[in-house]
């Protein structure tokens, strides 16, 4: 279980890792996009980090909703609305709650993905963050359902996301800016899939560290 205080810690840790990887993400986006993904996410998560400082005692829904609104109003580009929507949908699942159960976590993950799909109209195989997210969610869900626990599920999810990132290298983009490159995008990993992996890795590392 993740309580509201740990939730804030996790999100703030995400902000730290995004900042560390700002240049990497920007470089990946320069290759097949417009070179702002790292800059965008860092701008957004830096603001989130600050915003959450006073919110440790709020419920998980409020924390996630604040994260979402901050991302939406600070990130811009494609990733802003997408990550914003994801956090918002996840937050709706735990509105008013101060604890996130394993069951909540599966629902949140699912809702986040649905939000992204609804907003961005992309599918698996389009070379987007979904190529990291969807396989991560699938293994996360089966692992939880198999009662292997949150930590294991998160670890497997991060691993699956990493494979998803690798997979994006092999395909041409159909959605987002990289799609304009056509086959030229093959061989490059998707920046959004990469940031998704980084975020999931933070969660799994956080949970692993705690135990």
């Amino acid at each position, binding site marked *: 279980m993740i309580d509201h205080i740990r939730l804030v810690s996790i999100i703030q840790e995400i902000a730290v890792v995004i900042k560390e990887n700002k240049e990497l993400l920007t470089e990946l986006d*320069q290759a097949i996009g417009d*070179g702002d993904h790292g*800059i965008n996410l860092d701008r957004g998560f830096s603001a989130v980090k600050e915003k959450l400082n006073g919110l440790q005692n709020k419920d998980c829904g409020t924390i996630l909703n604040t994260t979402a609104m901050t991302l939406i*109003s600070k990130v811009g580009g*494609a990733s802003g609305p997408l990550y914003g929507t994801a956090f918002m949908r996840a937050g709706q699942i735990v509105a008013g709650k101060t604890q996130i159960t394993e069951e909540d976590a599966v629902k949140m993950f699912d809702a986040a993905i649905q939000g992204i799909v609804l907003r961005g109209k992309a599918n698996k195989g389009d070379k987007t963050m979904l190529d990291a997210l969807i396989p991560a969610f699938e293994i996360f869900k089966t692992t939880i359902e198999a009662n292997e626990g949150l930590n294991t599920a998160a670890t497997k999810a991060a691993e699956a996301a990493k494979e998803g990132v690798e997979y994006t290298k092999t395909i041409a983009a159909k*959605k987002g800016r990289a799609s*304009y490159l056509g086959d*030229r995008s093959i061989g490059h990993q998707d920046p959004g899939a990469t940031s998704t992996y980084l975020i999931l890795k933070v969660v799994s590392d956080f949970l692993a560290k705690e135990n």
Partner: protein
Amino acid sequence: MKKLINNPELVVEEMLEGIVKAHPNYVKQLEGFNVLVRANAPVKGKVALISGGGSGHEPSHGGFVGKGMLDGAVAGAVFTSPTPDQIFEAIKAVNGGAGVLSIIKNYTGDVMNFEMAAEMAEMEGLEDLEIASVVVDDDVAVENSTWTTGRRGIAGTVFIHKIAGAAAEKGMSLREVKEVAEKVIANVRSMGMSLTPCTVPAAGKPSFTLGENEMEVGLGIHGEPGTHRDEIKTADEITTHLVDKILADIDYSNSEVAVMVNGLGGTPIMELYVINKKVNEILAEKGIKIYKTLVGNYMTSLEMAGASITLLKLDEQLKELLDAAADTPAFTQF
């Protein structure tokens, strides 16, 4: 990175302040937002037009705020779609009671952020606020297809600003202005190329590198690579390639067109005119009549050296609206 800036993080804010100081008769900034609106906004009873997108395309879009064109422009970070809250503020600030039309360039980010702004407007249930939007996708470099993002919006967008702006100024309704905008979108095509990359201030290094004899063809306006890389050719050859791609896309035969030869920011104006000469020759050969020509920096990519060519097929209505007076910082005509 060689740039006349102070702080990459503040460059958009400082630019906007510089614009307002330069053109106080035309524009004002919404306090706390990266939004420019007409100095006399909202214009009561007129359909209002807003546009926006990442910064770095100057004079787009803030330079086209004024009589006969836009009512407001939302400036995102460099090459980054603006956020929904900013767009929403713009919508509220320009609304003069006759509705607000958003002119969106077809990028996933732009489309989604404008969409969310519209949702915000709906959620707030503002009475007296009718909104609509159009999405510009004039770039023929990318094949259109239903299962992809589709085409990009590039320099042709300025023709939407001009013509839909004139329609709004004439007193047309939101539905009518939108129809006019859609007619322009259906008839405008562009394609660009570049000789050099550009550097997003916050990134600090160029978006790509090109050899001394290489150019990128079929690229957008965000410093991204194009559809392919090629050896540099003569201006005539390049122009022929771009115009041919455009002409292959819709049938311009026996029609009258407006031409825009657009510089990407680092191109000598001399070179744009050399291109325009060839555009004229090609169109004359094909019996396509040029009704009006714009040559200059209208939709740029920071300091990128390169150009795009836009053709807009005209009918009598579009001609009249294209000819209507406009008075903005970057485009004025009697």
